[in-house]
């Protein structure tokens, strides 16, 4: 560690090799925190670029300077560029006489259905009426899972059992929601691997046919380097496999299982860095109230500690 606190007091301008040991230390720390490998590389070279040639304040440690530059970069990345106010948009849709529709998608087992229920609960707390649409018509028990949540929360459930075309089930659900003047439809979908072409095509069809207000990508904080690939491919395949002239992409991220990773919060950074999509919710437990907003400061603290 001592190499990181070498002082360059008296040196006028920062050169690349002055930064190397401090950057290596910082990079290793980010890797341990589960930030994807390619992102630690990109981040550290952008920090280097921002510092090389700069004048060094006297009696400042190089490690402090590097840490500060990294912190600034992280704030920039994690602060959402586009913000979405769901409740405002729900009311806007209501005024147009239609329900606000959210599609939850992602790979298998990440927590789509559970966190859909949490979002349902959150909406109800804001006096918004909700319907769940059981459009995972594949996985055993998926419909009953959603029904259990719907019963517990007293939310209405739209389901057509198994083996139906999920795109059509969603369409019928929305039609029913319009008739019953329901404010929000939460569409559950089956988990799928990002490289599974037929299943990705089916998702693109569901999105195209129903043109939801919000396409949420659900990813888990446990995921390693694959997280970025999942998100980027879901995004890309929604474009490539859509029959629409103006295809939709991922609007936001719901990051789950945040309670299982301690300070290894790197997945949050990796996903936002690569996609630019905002993290709209954090899932941090298995009960309905375990849904939080992202706290940029605390994420950065975990990453750099």
């Amino acid at each position, binding site marked *: 560690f001592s190499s990181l606190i070498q002082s360059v007091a008296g040196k006028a301008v920062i050169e690349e090799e002055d930064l190397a040991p401090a950057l290596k230390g910082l990079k*290793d720390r980010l*890797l*341990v*925190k*589960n930030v*994807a*490998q*390619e992102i630690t590389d990109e981040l550290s070279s952008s920090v280097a670029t921002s510092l090389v040639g700069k004048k060094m304040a006297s009696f400042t440690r190089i490690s402090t300077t590097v840490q500060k530059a990294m912190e600034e970069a992280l704030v920039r990345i994690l602060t959402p560029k586009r913000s979405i106010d769901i409740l405002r948009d729900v009311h806007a849709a209501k005024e147009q006489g239609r329900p606000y529709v959210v599609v939850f998608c992602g*790979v*298998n*087992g*990440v*927590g789509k*259905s*559970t966190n859909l*229920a949490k979002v349902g609960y959150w909406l109800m707390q804001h006096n918004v009426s909700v319907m769940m649409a059981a459009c995972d018509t*594949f*996985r*055993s*028990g*998926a*419909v*009953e*899972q*959603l*029904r*259990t*949540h719907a019963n*517990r929360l007293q939310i209405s459930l739209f389901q057509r059992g198994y083996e139906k075309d999920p795109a059509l089930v969603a369409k019928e659900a929305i039609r029913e929601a319009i008739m019953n003047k329901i404010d929000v439809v939460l569409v559950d979908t089956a988990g799928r*691997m*990002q*490289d*599974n072409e037929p299943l990705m095509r089916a998702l693109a069809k569901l999105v195209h046919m129903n043109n939801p207000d919000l396409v949420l990508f659900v990813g*888990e*904080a*446990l*995921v*390693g*380097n*694959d*997280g970025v*690939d*999942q998100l980027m*491919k879901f995004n890309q395949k929604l474009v490539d496999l859509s029959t629409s002239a103006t295809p939709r992409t991922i609007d936001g991220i719901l990051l789950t*299982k945040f*309670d*299982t*990773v*301690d300070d*290894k919060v*790197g*997945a949050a950074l990796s996903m936002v860095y690569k996609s630019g999509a905002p993290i709209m919710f954090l899932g941090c437990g*298995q009960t309905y109230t375990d849904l939080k907003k992202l706290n940029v400061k605390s994420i950065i603290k975990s990453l750099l500690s």
Partner: protein
Amino acid sequence: MVLTELGGQISSALQKMSNVTVIDQKALQECINEINRALLQADVSFKLVQTLATNIKKTVNPDDLAAGHNKRKIMQQAVFNELCGLLDPGKPSYTPKKGKQCVVMFVGLQGSGKTTTCTKYAQYYRKKGFKPSLVCADTFRAGAFDQLKQNATKANIPFFGSYTETDPVAIAQTGVENFKKENSDLIIVDTSGRHKQEASLFEEMRQVSEVTKPDLIIFVMDSSIGQAAFDQAQAFKQSVPVGAVIITKMDGHAKGGGALSAVAATKSPVIFLGTGEHMDEFELFDVKPFVSRLLGMGDWSGFMDK
């Protein structure tokens, strides 16, 4: 297969090295750095990667890499051996024997694939002439019993569970007792997903294990898991005697290094791979071919029986 990319990277690192005529410490270090990068990108735990690098440096003497020796082969053998070592705890796992009653309990993180894998496992052994049965000791997850029930019904395997009993320990005990009376020789107990941060969940797992006295506890792990793998796997092992690992979702794009770390943490062998959502998408695991595949095969296959 998902792991070939890692293999490709390591192979190219080695290729670069073999293009250098004089191998000195620096060239060796550069090669090791590239191998490290590849392993980190595959989600192998940071600590393990460092150990691996140290070991390789220890086993490979740069003098051996001087002219006249096959440098590439020496490095390849070293990397291959280290990765095998990581996956091979040195002792085989318990395997069920036909006719002798045995209980197998599945544990793991939330959503890792336990319930799906339970039925795959049952079906695999039924094909070998066993009389398997399934017990649903997950009373927590919404729809858990329906999920197991529907899978078991499709696969035609007897199952036990309850919609009203809320104590997983009680269900597990009754279920195992029932199937023992019915002469099932492979009683499989599915449990809820859990994580180390919640002590009460681990306590529940210990209790289920106490009343069912499993002959084998299988830790089910998702192949896409990152740096949290080692700590979580280790915590499971410290709480119950995990004896084997199954890695799921190998049909995805993940490189599986997190699972590698889990093996190191539990000191238990991987026995099967899950390769899809369908019940027949299930493969036996074997260390050497797996590592060869991880390294992208090619001329690696020559090391397999050494």
